[in-house]
């Protein structure tokens, strides 16, 4: 762990820097490929919607003492209750729970579902109260989806407004939104590719990703703004370097927060998989797990690089870059004279950070040079006199 702390220190001071911004074309390409794969999944394979969206019945029987031959017993019970047991999916969740799912039980009415529940309770020798039934009409899911999409659009609009006001530039809002949409699209893509079922709880999870992903991006952008404001004031770093420095400085925080957020979610996932089976808890946790992981990626590899690309062409940013390059060139020549060339760190080019020692040396060298010039030859002669 000491090395992790040291790693953080080095990122902060600039001794060690990862060139996130400079290699942004690589991330764009990588992200592009990933998004194409996600798109192929979504539009090619399609999404696997749960019963709630298609309509059907879901019955779960808990506290079963003897789950032997549960499949055939469930089939028989269903058949005796409503006449046929076609399209039946019987699964065991946990040690004592059996779930039965069907697109249509009997005539597809809620009364038939209740009948089946009764028969199952008898078959598995459990109390009626141990049986949960869930009957969903076919038009249920569409209204849920409709509502979710509506909420999404309103949220994005309000968010754009809030971020534009807070950061006082539309570019940050735009970059944050692109990262957000990326997170959502990519997460949904993962669902399409893996074929994990999407339930209403998953939809809630998707919507929560929004808040979380933007949280991450805002924290990084806050540092970016601080660094770039400083750069514009001092003129010693280009915009890209200042932004890259910010990403590096917040990297440890990004990792820590993601880990801390993922820990409880992982706990939920484990409990969900081992004890509960599919349900609100597990579905939400899985959606958040993917979402937060993807959100951390996007806040580092997409949001800030994109911001740099967006601001690249702005007149004052161009001016800053010119000033910063000029400053750095002159500094480099000074540094070269101090003979510390071999200590050149990666941070120097990617983030425009010079190690404090070298900066000190450079400053001293520059000062000598200036002082050297300041002393007029005549004054020197006077001195000698």
């Amino acid at each position, binding site marked *: *762990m*000491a*090395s*992790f*702390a*040291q790693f953080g*220190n080095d990122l*902060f*001071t600039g001794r060690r820097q990862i060139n996130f911004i400079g290699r942004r074309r690589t991330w764009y390409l990588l992200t592009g490929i990933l998004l194409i794969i996600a798109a192929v999944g979504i539009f090619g394979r399609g999404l696997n919607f749960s019963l709630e969206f298609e309509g059907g019945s879901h019955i*779960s029987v*808990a*506290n079963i003492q003897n789950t032997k031959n549960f499949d055939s017993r469930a089939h028989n019970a269903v058949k005796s209750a409503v006449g046929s047991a076609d399209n039946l999916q019987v699964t065991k969740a946990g040690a004592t*729970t059996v779930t039965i799912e069907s697109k249509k039980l009997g005539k597809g009415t*809620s009364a038939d579902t*209740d009948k089946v529940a009764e028969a199952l309770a008898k078959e598995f020798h459990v*109390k*009626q109260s*141990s049986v*949960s*039934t*869930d*009957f969903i*009409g076919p*038009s*249920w899911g569409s209204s*849920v989806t409709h*509502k979710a999409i509506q*909420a999404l659009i309103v949220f994005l609009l*309000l*968010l754009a407004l*809030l971020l534009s006001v807070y950061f006082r530039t539309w570019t940050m809002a735009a970059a944050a939104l692109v990262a957000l949409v990326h997170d959502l699209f990519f997460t949904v893509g993962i669902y399409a590719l893996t074929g994990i079922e999407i339930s209403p709880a998953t939809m809630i999870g998707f919507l*929560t990703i929004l*808040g*979380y992903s*933007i*949280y991450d991006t*805002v924290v990084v952008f*806050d540092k970016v703004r601080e660094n770039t404001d400083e750069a514009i004031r001092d003129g010693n770093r280009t915009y890209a370097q200042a932004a890259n420095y910010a990403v590096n400085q*917040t990297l440890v*925080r990004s990792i*820590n927060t993601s*880990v*801390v*957020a993922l*820990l*409880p*979610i992982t*706990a*939920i996932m*484990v*409990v*969900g998989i081992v004890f*509960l089976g599919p*349900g*609100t*808890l597990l579905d939400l*946790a899985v959606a958040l797990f993917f979402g937060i992981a993807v959100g951390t990626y996007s806040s580092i590899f997409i949001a800030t690089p994109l911001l740099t690309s967006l601001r690249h062409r702005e007149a004052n940013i161009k001016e800053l870059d010119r000033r910063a390059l000029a400053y750095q060139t002159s500094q480099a020549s000074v540094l070269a004279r101090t003979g510390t060339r071999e*200590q050149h760190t990666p941070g120097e080019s990617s983030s425009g950070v010079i190690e404090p*020692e070298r900066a*000190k040396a450079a400053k001293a060298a520059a000062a000598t040079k200036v002082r050297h010039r300041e002393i007029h030859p005549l004054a020197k002669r006077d001195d000698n006199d």
Partner: protein
Amino acid sequence: MATRARRSTAGKPRQILTILLLLIVAVYAGIAGTAAWGSPKGQWTPLLGLDLEGGRQITLQPIVGKGEQVNAGQVEQAVNIIRNRVNGNGVSEAEVSTLNKKLIQVSLPGNPSEQTLKSLAQSSELSFRPVISSQQVAAPTPQGATPTPSGSASPSSSPTSGSASKSPASKSPASKSPASKSPASKSPASKSPASKSTSGANDILPQAFRADTQKPTSPSSKASSPAGSSSSATPKPSPAPAPDRQLPGAQPQPANGSDDAWAKFPVDSIWIQNGLAQSGDTYQDLFQAFPCTQAQAPKGKPAVEWREIAARAPHSQPDVGCGDGYKYLMGPVEVEGKHLTDAGYGNQTNQQGVATNQVEVTLSLDSTGAKEFADVTKRLTPYGEGNPKNQFAITVDGKVVSAPGSRSVITDGKASITGNFTESSAKTLANQLKFGALPFSFKELTSNQVSPEVGTDQLQKGILAGLAGLLLVVLYSLLQYRALGFVTVASLIVAGVLSYGLVTLLGFTSGFRLTMAGVTGLIVSIGITADSFIVYFERVRDEVRSGRPLRAAVQTGWGRARRTIIVSDAVNFLAAAVLYVLSEDNVKAFAFTLGLSTLVDIAVVMMFTHPVLTLLSQTKFFGSGHKWSGFDPDRLGAAGVTYAGRGRVTIADRKAAAGSTAAEGGQA
């Protein structure tokens, strides 16, 4: 300067912590208060949602004909009606809400009977009953306007509630003998017993004569109306006509719906079965006992229960209902709500077709309804204004929404109600008439029975997951932040205590229920809450790295972290708020807990974590940057920077240090 700063920072955090403590105490005192004196009693644990507590949740979808649309107003009205029904069924803690503005969701705890479920989805009933007598019970609302002289050509009736403050009419000499009364009512037999009686011109007898002809008491009066009138008049499946069964031969037979004889009738068995009346009670007794408000209700029998039974009273029998500050004893149903085709409101037009200032509510009836209505108004109009019998009550689910007096015979099925209506009161009434009788019934879109055992199991596992997650977060922060991790743990505990208290309190004040989605939201918020501590700690560390002493680093770090924490929490809160406003059901519950935990997060960071860290930074352990404090300047690489700044560390030393850390990094 330094001492001044020290004094101010030492005083303030303690104050803030005290405020937080008071806040927590206030929340829990509030819970204690609701648990001790609340009505209904509050509890120390959060209210649980259906999916955790067990129960039945159904989603109802209106069934409408082709090309018809259900609008939000109708659904809203339906929700109110269903809510009344559920409450009337005596189901406590049932919830009725709209879903996506089109669907209605009903949550019932326990395992409700099929009959209960069925009764919810039935379409609602609006019916017209003639008033027999009325009694003022409270100040009438503005809508219950004083009657206005009819100057209009259109047949109009006006609410006469203002004039109806008479004693129960059965005691008044207004009653006539059934024989002399030849009701105009020609309504189908299914409507009322009165329909069987002979019909003819509605010769109204002079007041004096009325006074002479006392209430029908003799058996002959019974004979005058068909002996089997009550049985033949009750074609509805009510098993046996109550009057005959209970007091055979002793009952006068009412001739029409307005007959005072009804008051002497024994009440229908439905009232007795539900314990609201005793065997042998008459409708007059029921009328006296019937509570219009909760305050008037006898103990253990909420007013709503009376109303619910009133709504279910047989059509062929009299009924009691309340509305506009009046209590009405009403005759059997004479026009059924299904005959009402439309209702509207607007300014009345006079004979010249010019709109007047008078606001009216209009109703249209279909041909059957028009005929029935004509018959009734023919009978009622001659009673004259001021007589309760002149009034025709419109009831919806046991409630009298209006009881206008009949001013003229209406034959075309287009009635108008005038009075001191305002635009909005007219609109309310028109809507009640239009939607009061639900033009649609419902079908079950989803039906979800959660067994309490499954719910409990889910909750237990959820809590288990939460604790495991918390433990992991605690371990990780101890590993990352050493002693500082304990601040995280303490903050999380404070956040947990605050959230639990608020969720419990909100359960009492706003009926907030914790669902599985809500529990998940709370667990997820552990991570989000811990996140703001990390942002804060990392900022402080940054300041330490820059060479500031811890005490100053905490303050400058906080200044910067605070901004970040506030804006990120604002974004999170925005997401929660949008979800809360725009979504329904489970998503709403989740959004609520997420929003709540965001607010709790801000409160805890500002009022607990920061003050505590400020205080800790003044201790020797943290202030001097002990190795295990999490703020060790050496570990944070600050010492090097600081000393290099003073020129004590040579570049060679730095190189050596860098080399050793690089090696360490390689090993890790």
